[in-house]
């Protein structure tokens, strides 16, 4: 919100306080400032002038040479282009040296004629946006009078960060900020004039159907109006606070809004059918047209202000077109009310109609303010329009709630939280400056919160701590280290595990870590294809490209592969991130486990099969290394049913735990995906379930004595059907003797004559070793014999001789 310091000065004397001082203290004790803008810094010498003569300049279409009386000395010659420049006009004159709109006025030749100054429009003086002509001032003002003495051309506009006063409905008007400044600098606060006589007539008949949604409704009628533009001074203040001047009556409502923070609304009395006001809930689907000429469809929770027969305002949000103040309006009924904040907020959010009024109502307004605001409006209108008069008594329907109980706290508590040593009387004095009522008895402090702070903001002792602290000054409170007990150490299982993975992959396997959005990219999935996984949708997606949370991590690394491949023939990428699967039970959080996805690219080989294999085995090398470093027992098997659709099913593997659970998949990239993302076939990718891996038992590292007896190597060649995997063979070799088999190395695979078609010969070098003796060849042969029999039975293997 924007505040004019000139306006604030109406309620608190700012004499002797620099703008910097005021701003610094507001930042220190009250709110955040967005900006501080000085208006009219170069305009202090602008004075009133009377145009004596105005003559057209030959050959210059719009220019006139004016002779103006500026109060002292001889008349001054000024060239002026304004259409309303005429003899007898009293206007504003900027002498040379003044700065208007950032430009210094100099004695200059305009159209061949000397001009010693400038006659100014309201826009040029920063008053309004009106630059249709020069200012027209009251003819009674003496030439030479400085304009700044009766118009706010020199001012400072302070913009406060709205989020920093979300909790302070009282600060949404100039009086509220003036009250803070008065408290800070210990100066008296002058309240605005609300002194008006009651009118003669009956008050408008107000009935409130829903006192829960409208705790207080005040209405008053004002007659004898002549709708006209407001005086320039009023227009100027509204304008610089961001509100467009409209007419004296409407401007007065906005003036009250910006002054007291209390929205008020004027209905044309002629349109108040039956002379009645009914506050009722809207019916679902009810249609109205708001002041901005937009049709609106309401919900059952919305609140309406109606006359005897029809709605005339959407409560707390906006008036309706049917009852607005018009140029011929002579009498208005003014509404000043409080509405339940969440009701106004819901309506405003749903209708997309966030107004100055709704922004204030949704912050819980002070129930004591409506009658003050109504009378303040009457006073303003009567000041603006001499014939205006209050034509009714004040209607006031108030479901009065008991005032909140005083807050009880102690000086000791306040001092403990603030680290201060303030006496109870000092605390009382600080709170009293902010208009709190304080009774201090010994250490006990009983605080009555002023109504304008009690609606939401201040209710508990902690709130008082803040009030005392901010006014006392946090910068006066010395820092103090807390006592620090030694905590029980705790290592988060996920974080610890992920750190280990990152270290192994980035520094061991030379892979690059990426991080990507938690959303699926729909255009990317359109290209690479989708997995048939249940996905969690976003109700309000930021774009049509990010509508669901990712259920798989592979596409994230593939997208990075696409982006990065043109720049790197050799790549190893990985991401650790959460994926999301809808919960099966309503009301629960979705399953959101961490996954690890990897993608590699290797230099292409001569043919696609070789490229795919090279990529796959590069990837598998990384995985083998990772599992080894982490001590994870993972078994690799030929790909099964659950292979992700982005991998080539013919060159993929399933990664399993020792107890058979699927921990992930790895494979060469599916040729269709490779084509879609514009990489060759020399790519491979994997996705692993880190939650499952995290919880696997990991062997404790322990020392094993260096072998004292020699190892016996044994070369074994077996012929097996092609479908039998290396892993299956190795598993059986290792199982052949749990302690003697120290190492199994595949030394060669051979297909072709004399091996029958569909079979292959695999040769292994097995190292047998015992910890307590040198093994005899016969012992090794016995083990191998049993092994070969087992492989023959399980795998259809036979010994190659």
């Amino acid at each position, binding site marked *: 919100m924007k505040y004019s310091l000139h306006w604030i000065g109406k309620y608190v004397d700012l004499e002797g306080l620099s703008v910097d001082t005021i701003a610094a203290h507001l930042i220190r004790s009250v709110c955040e400032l967005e900006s501080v803008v000085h208006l009219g810094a170069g305009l202090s010498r602008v004075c009133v002038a009377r145009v004596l003569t105005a003559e057209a300049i030959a050959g210059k279409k719009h220019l006139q040479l004016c002779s103006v009386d500026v109060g002292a000395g001889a008349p001054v010659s000024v060239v002026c282009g304004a259409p309303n420049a005429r003899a007898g006009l009293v206007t504003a004159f900027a002498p040379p040296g003044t700065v208007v709109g950032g430009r210094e006025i100099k004695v200059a030749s305009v159209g061949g004629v000397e001009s010693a100054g400038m006659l100014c429009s309201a826009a040029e003086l920063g008053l309004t946006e009106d630059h249709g002509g020069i200012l027209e001032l009251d003819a009674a003002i003496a030439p030479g009078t400085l304009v700044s003495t009766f118009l706010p051309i020199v001012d400072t506009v302070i913009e406060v960060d709205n989020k920093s006063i979300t909790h302070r409905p009282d600060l949404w008007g100039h009086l509220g900020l003036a009250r803070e400044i008065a408290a800070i600098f210990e100066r008296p606060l002058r309240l605005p004039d609300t002194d008006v006589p009651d009118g003669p007539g009956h008050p408008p008949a107000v009935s409130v159907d829903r006192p829960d949604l409208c705790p207080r409704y005040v209405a008053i009628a004002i007659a004898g109006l002549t709708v006209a533009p407001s005086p320039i001074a009023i227009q100027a203040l509204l304008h610089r606070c961001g509100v467009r001047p409209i007419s004296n009556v409407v401007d007065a409502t906005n003036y009250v809004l910006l002054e007291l923070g209390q929205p008020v609304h004027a209905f044309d009395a002629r349109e108040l059918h039956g002379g009645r006001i009914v506050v009722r809930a809207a019916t679902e689907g009810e249609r109205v047209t708001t002041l901005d000429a937009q049709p609106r469809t309401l919900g059952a929770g919305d609140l309406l202000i109606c006359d005897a027969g029809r709605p005339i305002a959407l409560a707390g949000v906006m008036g309706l077109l049917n009852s607005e103040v018009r140029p011929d309006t002579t009498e208005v009924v003014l509404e000043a009310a409080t509405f339940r904040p969440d009701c106004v907020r819901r309506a405003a959010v749903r209708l997309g109609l966030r107004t100055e009024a709704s922004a204030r109502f949704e912050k819980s307004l002070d129930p004591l303010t409506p009658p003050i605001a109504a009378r303040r409006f009457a006073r303003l209108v009567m000041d603006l329009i001499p014939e205006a008069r209050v034509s009714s008594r004040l209607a006031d329907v108030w479901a009065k709630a008991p005032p909140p109980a005083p807050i009880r706290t102690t000086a000791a508590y306040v001092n403990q939280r603030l680290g201060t040593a303030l006496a109870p009387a000092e605390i009382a004095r600080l709170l009293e400056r902010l208009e709190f009522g304080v009774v201090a008895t010994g250490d006990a402090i009983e605080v009555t919160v002023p109504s304008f702070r009690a609606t939401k903001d201040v209710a508990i002792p*902690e709130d008082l701590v803040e009030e005392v602290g901010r006014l006392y000054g946090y910068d006066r409170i010395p820092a103090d280290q807390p006592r620090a007990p030694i905590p029980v150490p705790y290592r988060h299982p996920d974080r610890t595990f992920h750190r280990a993975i*990152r270290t192994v992959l*980035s520094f061991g*396997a030379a892979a690059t870590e990426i991080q990507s959005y938690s959303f699926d990219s729909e255009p990317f999935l359109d290209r690479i294809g989708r997995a048939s996984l249940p996905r969690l949708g976003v109700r309000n997606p930021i774009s049509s490209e990010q509508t669901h949370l990712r259920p798989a991590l592979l596409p994230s690394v593939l997208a990075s592969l696409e982006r990065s491949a043109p720049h790197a023939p050799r790549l*190893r990428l990985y991401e650790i991130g959460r994926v999301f699967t809808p919960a099966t039970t309503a009301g629960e959080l979705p399953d959101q486990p961490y996954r690890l996805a990897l993608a590699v690219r290797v230099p292409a080989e001569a043919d696609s099969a070789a490229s795919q294999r090279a990529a796959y085995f590069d990837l598998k090398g990384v995985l083998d290394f990772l599992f080894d470093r982490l001590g994870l027992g993972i078994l690799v098997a030929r790909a099964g049913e659950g292979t992700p659709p982005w991998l080539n099913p013919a060159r993929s593997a399933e990664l399993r735990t020792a107890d058979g659970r699927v921990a992930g998949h790895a494979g060469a990239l599916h040729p269709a995906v490779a084509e879609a993302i514009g990489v060759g076939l020399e790519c491979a990718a994997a996705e692993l379930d880190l939650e499952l891996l995290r919880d696997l038992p990991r062997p404790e590292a322990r020392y094993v004595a260096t072998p004292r007896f020699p190892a016996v190597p044994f070369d074994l060649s077996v012929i097996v059907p092609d479908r039998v995997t290396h892993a299956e063979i190795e598993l059986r070799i290792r199982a052949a003797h749990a302690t003697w088999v120290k190492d199994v190395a595949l030394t060669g695979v051979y297909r072709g004559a004399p091996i029958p078609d569909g079979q292959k010969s695999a040769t292994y070098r097995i190292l047998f070793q015992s910890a307590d003796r040198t093994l005899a060849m016969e012992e090794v042969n016995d083990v191998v014999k049993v092994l070969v029999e087992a492989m023959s039975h399980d795998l259809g293997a036979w010994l190659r001789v």
Partner: protein
Amino acid sequence: MTHPASVELAALRDEALRLATNAADDAALDAVVQAFLGKSGRLKGHLKRLGSVPAAERPALGKAVNDTVTEVEAAIATRRKALGDARLEAALSDPGFDPTLPGAPVARGTLHPLTLVDQRLDEIFRSMGFYVLDYPEVDSEHYNFEALNIPADHPARDMQDTFWLNDGNLLRTHTSAGQVRTMKAFAPPFRAIFPGRVFRYEATDASHEHTFHQVEGLCIDRHVSVPHLQASMKTLLSGVFGREVKVRLRPGYFPFVEPGFELDIGCLVCDGAGCPVCKRSGWVELLPCGLVHPNVLRAGGLDPDEWQGWAFGLGLSRLVMMRYKIDDIRHLLAGDVRFLSQFSGTGLE
């Protein structure tokens, strides 16, 4: 007269010495040893001929053979040493050697800059006795808002435009969503941070992302005061920035703290003297913080008469951008190796 054996010995001696002295390498010397000095070598073998020599001459000839062996051995040793010296000398001279040629390549991987800063914070905070925790990215309205004293229709919800999910949950808008989870999971007193990604429904530009990273700090103890918060933040931030920082607290409004603060740090660019970075104020707004609101303590199952706390929320993405002088936040999640491979830290610096 000289016995023919003596004549032959002299010839053998000459040949052996010639071969030893001219040997090109150790292998040639070894051949000389083998040929002349072995048990059946030509010199030692010569002793066998003593039988054919008159008895009177035998001692002299025997001695002559032994002397010759000694002489040849010495020559071999001399030559061996000379060869060794020459080799050493050769090895110690390499005028063409260029020590600046590239070393054998070692493949190089990198951590994401967010990880690097995350790990640095992890290190610093754990060394100061903090738990480092991790919480779900999809969370409930309860933990993200209600438990934090932000009921439905509270105007403060405007501060954080929210991604809502079809199942009624939301993408957490701040790491503060972990506060009440932490209170429920750990027995006080404790100190904890919880870094992670957060989401805001807002348009993206160079300095705004709908997905970014924060780190939340939470301390629960029996007596927690504004001065504690101030001192703790000063110490923690000095650790984070690796130098002594000045801090100041200003009033700030966040429903889950009371009192709430905006914390400024003394500008690290100008040390408070005033510069464009701090808009000439000497201070830079860094993070929101405050004393934990009693309603939040209650939501976490803690009795506000017994337990108090402070909390802060630090922009991790912003910290990364400050640290690496990254000018566009959108680089962070774009997955481009040309960006990512620039960060060669180990996370332990």
